[in-house]
C-alpha cells in the first residue's frame, strides 16, 4: 500500500533521512521505532508532503506521491495524527472533528463517522462543545486520532501517541488503535519511542538510527532480538 524507496530528506544542510526504504501492506500495523532525533517524525512528515523530499520515491497504492501537495495526499487517503497531538485549542471538540473531514462533502456519512468516534471515545462525546485546548493530554490524543480518522483514510499515520501520557492512558490508547485496526481494517503506520508497546501491537517493525533503517522484521522477532532488547527495551 505504502512504499518508500531510498527516500532522502534534508533540512538545509542536514540530511535527516539518508535513504530509507520501507513498505506497509494493507491491513497491517507497522511500527517505526528509534531514539529521539533518529528521523521518525521526519519520515511521517515527508510522507504527508509537509517536508520536501530530496531524492527517492514514495508510492501510495502504486501512485507516486512524493511531489504531491499535502491536501492531495490527504485526499488520496493518508491522514496523520502528528506528534504532540496539535489539537486546535480554540476550536471545540466537534469543530476539530469537522476539520478532520474538511475534504469530504458527504454530510450523512460524516455524521455516521462522528457517531462511531463518540462510541469509541465516549469521553469526547461528553466534551463535544468544549474547546480543544481545555482537554487533558489523554483526551487530546483520542481527539487527534479521531480527527485523523474523520478523513476516512486508507492509511493512518500515528506519531508518538503515547507521548506524555500516563501508562494507564497509554494502554487505553493502544487498545483503541488495535480496535481501529481490527474493526475497520485500518492500515496503520505507527511511530513510537515506547518500543515495547509498539512492537507488541504491531505486525511488523522497523528500527531507525541516525536517518537510516538499521533493522526490520516481524514484530515478534524484533521483540526478542538482542540488539533491540539492549538498545530500546532496556532488558
Amino acid at each position, binding site marked *: 500500500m505504502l512504499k518508500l524507496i531510498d527516500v532522502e530528506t534534508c533540512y538545509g544542510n542536514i540530511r535527516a533521512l539518508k535513504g530509507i526504504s520501507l513498505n506497509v501492506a494493507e491491513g497491517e500495523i507497522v511500527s517505526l521505532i528509534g531514539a529521539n532525533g533518529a528521523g521518525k517524525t521526519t519520515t511521517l512528515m515527508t510522507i*504527508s508532503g*509537509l517536508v520536501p523530499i530530496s531524492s527517492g520515491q514514495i508510492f501510495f497504492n502504486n501512485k507516486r506521491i512524493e511531489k504531491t*501537495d499535502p491536501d492531495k495526499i490527504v485526499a488520496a487517503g493518508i491522514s496523520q495524527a502528528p506528534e*504532540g497531538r*496539535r489539537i*486546535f485549542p*480554540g476550536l471545540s471538540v466537534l469543530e476539530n472533528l469537522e476539520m478532520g473531514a474538511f*475534504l469530504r462533502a458527504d454530510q450523512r456519512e460524516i455524521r455516521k463517522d462522528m457517531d462511531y468516534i463518540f462510541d469509541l471515545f465516549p469521553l469526547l462525546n461528553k466534551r463535544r462543545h468544549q474547546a480543544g485546548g481545555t482537554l487533558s493530554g489523554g483526551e487530546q490524543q483520542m481527539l487527534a486520532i479521531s480527527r485523523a480518522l474523520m478523513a476516512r483514510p486508507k492509511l493512518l499515520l500515528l506519531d508518538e501517541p503515547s507521548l506524555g501520557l500516563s501508562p494507564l492512558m497509554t494502554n487505553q490508547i493502544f487498545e483503541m488503535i488495535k480496535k481501529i485496526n481490527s474493526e475497520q481494517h485500518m492500515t496503520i503506520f505507527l511511530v513510537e519511542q515506547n518500543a515495547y508497546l509498539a512492537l507488541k501491537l504491531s505486525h511488523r517493525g522497523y528500527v531507525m538510527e541516525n536517518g537510516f533503517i538499521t533493522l526490520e522484521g516481524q514484530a515478534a522477532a524484533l521483540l526478542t532480538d538482542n540488539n533491540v532488547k539492549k538498545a530500546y527495551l532496556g532488558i
Partner: protein
Amino acid sequence: MNYFWDLFLGGITRGSIYALIALGYTMVYGILELINFAHGEIYMIGAFTALIVASVLTMHGLTGVAVLILATIVAVFYAAAYGFSVEKIAYKPLRQAPRLSPLISAIGMSIFLQNYVLLAQTSDFLPFPNLLQDVLLPEAISGWIAPSEFIIIFTAAVLMIGLTLILKFTKMGKAMRAVAQDREMAMLLGINVNRIISRTFIIGSALAAIGGVLIASHVGRINFYIGFGAGIKAFTAAVLGGIGSIPGAMLGGLVLGLTESFATGYISSDYENVFAFALLILILIFKPEGILGRSSQQKV
C-alpha cells in the same frame, strides 16, 4: 448632554470605520503573523474606485442610492482584487523567509500603491460626493442621529456580525480559525492553506473598501495619502484590542474612536492624535497583549 451625545455618536462612527479596517490587519496577523502595511492603501483604493464609479454613473444621469450601492460594489471587488494580488505578489513568495522580509515587502507595497495612485490620479484632494445623504431614513431615526452616521454605524455593525457568524459557523470560517491556530496541522488535514490565506485577504480588503466608501462620503474628500493615516489608526485599534483577535479589533476600533472624539470635543482637536497614541502606549505598558488579546503562548 446634547454635546456629549454628539461626541459619543461621532466617536462610534469613527470607531466603526477603524474597526472595519482593523479587522483586515488582525485577520491577516492571526494567520500569517504579518502586519500588512499595505492594508491602508487598499482602503484608499476602495475610496478612489468608488469616486470614479460614482462620477461616471452621475455623468450618465444616475442618482441617489443606486450610485452608492453600485459604487460600493465595484469598490469592493476592485479592492478585493488588489488585496488578493498584493498577497500573491509581495507575501506569498516570502512565506518561508525570515519574518522581517515580508514586513519590508509590505512597507514597499504600501509606498508603491500610494505612488501609483498619486501618478494615476493626482496629489490634490478630490471632492467626494456625499452619497449617504440620499438614503432616506424614517423620522424616528433621523431625529436623534445624523443619517450618514447612522448608515456608517449600521453598516459596520451588520458587517461585523456577518463576519463573526461566518467565522463561527461556516466550514470556511472554521478552516480560517484552524489555519490561524496551527497552519501545519491544517495542512495535515487537507486544508489548502494558500486558498484560505487568499480568502482572508479578500475579506479584509472588502471590509476596508466599504469603510473607505463610507468615510469618504462622510468626510467629503480624498487623496492618495488617506490610507496611511487611516491605516495607522486602524492598526492602533487592532493592537489596542489585541492583535489577532476579531472581537478585539472591533472593540479596539470603538475605544479608539470614542477616545479621539471626546479628546477633540472636550480638550482640543489639536490633541486628537496625542490621545489616540497615548492610549496605545498605556495599553502596551499595562496590558501588552491588548484588551481582548491572549498573552502569546510559547509553542512547544
